[in-house]
């Protein structure tokens, strides 16, 4: 019994140490500015304040960035998941020449560093006149999101028994009819978790946004918030922590409600690759 308690205390002290930076982010965001510089620092705020959140929403362009990020991540997710679902179906359930090498190519691009693709993509998007638009970011994001989604969905698709489809075909369904009626409902958990992961990836992306977008009209949260750090004369840490919290809120929501989907996706794609 005593050993069990000791082990639990040990385990939880490590967990709390890992989580401490996130706790500190929350605490800092609700402390008034003067309390930040107190020695020794207060662990819990003496006075709670939401002024930084208010300032963030009214004085900075945070909401604009947030909105850009929402549009950008949602569009990327929808486009990528739609293409990847039919693509994965084809890769797993059809036989044709070049199928194997295509699957190989998907895996290859999944591992490809984005700094290699970013130079020609930059040139390409500038020449197309798309630089500084959300569209350019959607195009750029497909370079990492599509291989990723395809790879995940491929393993989900492979997990659906082939007999189900065959049975539908014997009953007179067309191939696409069987896909719609049989495969899609079975695949739905996989699609949801792939969509969540794609959304998170796009929400957190930084490099492409840094290179391709240079105006506040299209700038997503990652580069937008970072700009607030660089451009401010004296750094307002509370404000930045408030921005960090707000930026993580969608992820927390996704995380809390759909944790089972997330871990499932992780098992399918993260480990098998």
């Amino acid at each position, binding site marked *: 019994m005593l050993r069990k308690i000791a082990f639990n205390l040990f385990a939880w002290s490590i967990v709390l140490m890992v989580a401490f930076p996130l706790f500190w982010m929350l605490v800092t965001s609700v402390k008034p500015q003067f309390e930040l510089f107190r020695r020794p620092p207060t662990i819990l705020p003496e006075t709670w304040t939401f002024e930084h959140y208010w300032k963030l929403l009214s004085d900075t362009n945070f909401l604009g960035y947030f909105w850009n990020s929402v549009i950008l991540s949602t569009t990327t997710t929808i486009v990528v998941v739609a*293409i990847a679902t039919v693509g994965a179906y084809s890769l797993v359930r059809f036989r044709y020449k070049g199928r194997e090498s295509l699957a190989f190519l998907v895996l290859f691009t999944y591992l490809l560093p984005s700094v290699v693709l970013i130079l020609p993509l930059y040139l390409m998007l500038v020449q197309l006149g798309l630089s500084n638009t959300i569209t350019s970011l959607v195009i750029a994001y497909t370079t990492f999101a599509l291989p990723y989604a395809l790879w995940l969905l491929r393993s989900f698709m492979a997990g659906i028994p082939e007999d189900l489809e065959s049975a539908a075909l014997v009953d007179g*369904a067309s191939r696409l009819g069987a896909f719609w009626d049989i495969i899609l409902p079975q695949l739905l958990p996989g699609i949801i978790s792939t969509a969540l992961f794609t959304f998170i990836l796009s929400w957190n992306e*930084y490099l492409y946004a840094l290179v391709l977008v240079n105006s506040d009209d299209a700038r997503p949260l990652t580069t937008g918030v970072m700009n607030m750090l660089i451009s401010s004369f004296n750094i307002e840490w509370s404000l930045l922590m408030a921005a960090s919290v707000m930026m*993580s809120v969608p992820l927390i929501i996704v995380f809390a409600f759909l944790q089972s989907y997330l871990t499932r996706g992780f*098992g399918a794609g993260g480990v098998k690759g």
Partner: protein
Amino acid sequence: MLAAVGPPAARRPDPQRYAMAKQQQTVLERQYSRLGLLLIAPTVLVFCAVIAYPLVSAIYLSLFKIFTPTLEGTWVGLDNYRTLLVKGEFWTSLRANLIWTVGTLTLQIIFGVGMALVLHQNIWFRSLARSLILFPYFISTVVAVLVWKWLFNDLYGILNHLMISAGLIDWPIDYLGTMPNAMISVILVGAWKYFPFVVIAVLARLQSIPDQLYEAARIDGAGPIARFFDVTLPQLREVLVVIIMLRAIWDFKEFDLIFLLTGGGPVTSTQTLPLVVYKEAFALNQMGMAAAYAVIMMLIMLVFMILYMRRTQREDT
């Protein structure tokens, strides 16, 4: 829509019907493969446009000298590669890159496996503990970096305060501005951010180890440490190899975390290859040189990538 399929034609063996059915089947097969190609077409199109074409043109770009703002280039052949390989910067960056990759990967694996073993036990509020552990992996690198910069702050950061009050140091440490502190800090933050990946992967594997193995070891008189080395570790070997390869690839190409935390500094001591590519292309305006760096970097990574891909292909078949 494209291929309506009737029920199988032959109920009893009838040569003529059988032949017809067979013929029908090949027609069907051809229709199916056409449908398969149609379904993969969008993927192939997007791949060609945003991945294959840029990849080829990255190699092509590396043969030019290009001034980024005007995008005007002159052919220089392999000159970029020649200058790059004799320049000290490439080698120091490669060295920094390897130190970063090996350092952070080692910590990720050790912490990750340890944490997975802890979370595998029946501790209080286990699912809450798991969520807290996973969280660093899912937040944006931007958020992680901002939080850590605030923790690292030399005057008001909590880390310096804790270290001083614990008596570990006398003066505040400059975590990001001097060497080797900067490299150690970057490695630590990287380990904090990415070890949850190892936790999840290992945890999933731990849950599938049959209990009988532990029972048998216990009957044979193995203590907890012997059980870990004789049962758990061999069972984890497969998944650990995969994790190490994947994480090695991802850590090697990491850009955001290092760029945002130190920007490659102090001077160039934490400047890894992806950071050089960015610097050459968008700060020094040498797009061609940047492409050469990127291609070399890809060639180095190719070793790991091929190893990993061969492994997954073996598993697939």
